[in-house]
């Protein structure tokens, strides 16, 4: 069972290590982790996807909350939040395949951000399934390189998760 949690942390050196270390020593599995600034420069926001049952999720949240540099931990219910991930994909593309790839890019409302004689780089955003789907379709041409950001997530409507 996958769960998404948003973690507001103090923007200090070593905080990522504390969180990663907690996950590894308590044998919690991280599926993805993304981190970046918030509107307040003192705080960063992490979105962590955790794999495990309800008891494990509860322990993850409680243990994270114990860290002094962690300000807030919230579970994000998938049905009540929007989730986005960005991927850049370098795919083989020659004269024959280029147009077909461009069609796929259009269908997924993705973008081509670099073109050369033998390859191009595609940028795509969306939820996890959408990115999985385009990766699957592009595989036939030969994916040379793939980088995904890990997902970020936000609750719909008026509810706000802030420090």
């Amino acid at each position, binding site marked *: 069972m996958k769960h998404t949690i948003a973690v507001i*942390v*103090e923007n200090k050196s070593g905080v990522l290590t*504390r969180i990663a*270390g907690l996950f590894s020593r308590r044998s919690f599995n991280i599926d993805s982790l993304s981190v970046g600034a918030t509107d307040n420069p003192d705080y960063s926001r992490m979105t962590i996807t955790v794999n495990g049952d309800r*008891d494990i999720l509860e322990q993850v949240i*409680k*243990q994270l*909350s114990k860290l002094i540099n*962690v*300000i807030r931990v919230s579970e994000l219910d998938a049905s009540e939040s929007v989730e986005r991930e960005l991927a850049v994909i370098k795919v083989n593309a020659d004269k024959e395949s280029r147009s077909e790839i461009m069609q796929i890019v259009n269908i997924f409302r993705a973008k081509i951000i670099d073109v050369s004689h033998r390859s191009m780089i595609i940028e795509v955003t969306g939820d996890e399934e959408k990115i999985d789907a385009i990766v699957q379709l592009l595989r036939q041409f030969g994916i040379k390189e793939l980088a995904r950001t890990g997902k970020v997530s936000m609750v719909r409507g008026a509810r706000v998760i802030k420090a």
Partner: protein
Amino acid sequence: MSQKMTGAQAVLESLKREEVDVVFGLPGGVLLPLYDAIYQSDIRHILVRHEQGAAHMADGYARATGKVGVCIATSGPGATNLVTGIANAYMDSVPMVAITGQVNTWLIGKDAFQEADITGITLPITKHNYLLRSAKDITRVFREAFFIARTGRPGPVLIDLPRDVTVDEVEFSWPEVELPGYRPSFKAHEMQIKKAAKALMEAERPVIYVGGGVKYARAERELIELAVKINAPVTTTLMGVGCFPEDHNLSLGMLGMHGTKYANYAIQESDLILAIGARFDDRVTGKIASFAPRAKIVHIDVDPAEVSKNVRVDIPVVGDAKNALQGLLKEVKPKGRSDWNEKTEGWKKDYPLRYIPDMNIIKPQYVIEKLCEIAPDAIITTEVGQNQMWAAQFFVHKDPQKFISSGGLGTMGYGFPAAIGAKIGRPECDVIDVAGDGSFLMNSQELATAVVNEIPVKVAVLNNGCLGMVRQWQELFFDKRYSATILGRTSPDFVKLAEAYGAVGLRATKPSEVESVIRAAMAVDRPVVMDFIVSPAEKVSPMVPAGATLSEILELEWCDADQYCHLEKIYAQGRKEILGQEGF
């Protein structure tokens, strides 16, 4: 009014403001400026002979006094030598501040001489840690560190202090603590207290199960009041030993692997367990799936992460043990004696802790009984293993600050330096370290510290010529293949060892000599090592084999044929589990 001073002076001023009167440490290159400031201050510094000793002394001092213990070590090896002591304090939730020297800030990360990434190393074994990068942060960080160490669930905090930070000049200020991410729980939720009280009133066979949390909250009085008011028997973990007076008729003593039979029977038969400041450790619960099968579980703990970590809790009460107990006392009504009291007291009569006395050879349990008889109010510290279990079982404990033992980490070599720390914190008390011939040698160099600083602690070495607890398991689970556990008489002569350091050495080889040796040791105002040559074959009993249910507790010396077959079966299972994942 602000005042200019060096970083080192700011450290000392911060310690003074936190009312630190003693620190345990050993200097080194990067600590020269700090030690120069110590030289010029009136703080008491106890020079140790190994940094591990400093950490355990700070730990023993903290447990005996309830104050924050402070230890100091230099960068690199000094800091890494503290690691075991910090981990020990972390596992047993001991308030401690560890100060380590660090190389100059511009050398950090360059593999400089005596550089170690001690904040990285201690990340999983501290409640929090800091690497100071600027002298202006010193006072804020020290104030936060002491606040974090002593509040909520206490624990060790480490401050890494680069050399240049201690040299730089700074304006002294004493800022208020502002930690938006740290909100330790204190007040228990009223609704939960009401639910807990209702469950206690409805229960027919309640047991109160008490851990170190009651000691740290200083809630012993409330605990006794509650137990008496509702006539509920009380059992304690190793960390909770002394929280409830063991000579009280409601006391069931310690539970778990080497607990009393009656405590373990009571837990298994109970219909309600009120756990207070205890964490359902595997040494306590035995086989978790069959732990207290009929009991509803109420769990009072200051650390929300402990709730439902190991067992499923029916009624969690998150808060300070004293606060929660005061709340419960208001809600519960007095309950008279019941059949349950008759039953538990019957078990107490039928299955007392016992051993087979001997006229010719000293039984280790006998030494503990004599210590208790001669020095009933002494602070007892222990090493780890058989000596620890016998000290827990055969001394009648009445005060949690007077039983000091390494519970979670199980650190051999802890007891002696902890005794020195305890004696410094409570000079009016007798302090006795119950040791084994294996564990005492792990920090016996601190005899120098005790002698030089005139700290008259006593060590009772239960000298059985082996690493007894492991030997016991080898006898039971590994067909008596005593791999690397027989020391024989290869240990040094402990009497001469004591004398070499300038301490007093005494020896007893016969039961008739035990009392006179103890009386002689207690009569001198100097550090004493008592060498008791005890039976090597003695085992800690009773025992719940690893992976067995608590009620499958066995007395190892008194098995009849039927029981023996049963024992063999459980041992076979235990062996399987040991060779697999669980257990030892």
